[in-house]
């Protein structure tokens, strides 16, 4: 079990590595989300085309 004394907690909060990590802002995912959207649209379109082909093949058999 971990025991945190007040002294240790104070030291942790003053520690630079701790502060750097804790103060890191949430990730900026703007670019990733933009690319993910482009990919999602594209893959949906590809799948639609392929499903249509499969349907046509099934009908012609």
């Amino acid at each position, binding site marked *: 079990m971990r025991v945190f004394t007040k002294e240790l907690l104070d030291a942790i909060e003053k520690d630079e590595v701790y502060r750097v990590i804790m103060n890191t802002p949430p990730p900026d995912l703007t670019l990733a989300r933009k690319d*993910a959207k482009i990919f*999602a649209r594209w893959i949906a379109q590809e799948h639609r085309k392929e499903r249509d082909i499969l349907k046509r093949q099934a009908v012609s058999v």
Partner: protein
Amino acid sequence: MLVPPLSLETRDFVVEHLEDSPENLQLIRAFTCSNNAMGLELYLKQQALNDEDNGQSRTYLVKDALTRELACYFSLRTCLIPYELADRRINLSAIELANFAVNDNYRRSQRAVAKIGEYVFVEIIRPLAKHISTCIGAGWLCVFALPKERLIDYYKKKLGFSRLPADKEKLVHGHVKPDYDKDCIFMYQRI
């Protein structure tokens, strides 16, 4: 509800564990990963199942919902961000994205439009990490990125990972890593 349900499936991809389907072993055998990332291919083929059996990590296969091709895979494990404070060792709870690779043989990954890495990260990996963090308490998602400028840049600019200042990076230590993680760069982001 203590833990809300989570569905990882998107309209176009399904996510499975290694042994969820009999076809998976065959798909894994056919997985290739160039770009100097042979370690990621070997991990999936030789180590992933052992790590699952031993409770060391969990590997997820992302499969094309229509063709059932293996598009990519990733592994998650719990981890600590350890650093030294005076004579004490302090740990922060985190989740490690231990492996993340796109299958070279997945034909769609070769197209110019392909942004499958970003898609899987945003639509599957982050929601899963968020979900796990609600169960176990983990504040960060970490990677040990191969020390390649382009890759580090990709993780930073595209996927939103941060690096510690150079002089602080050395203080984060002690991770047990597979050989191919040697010299890798620690990166992290808030979940």
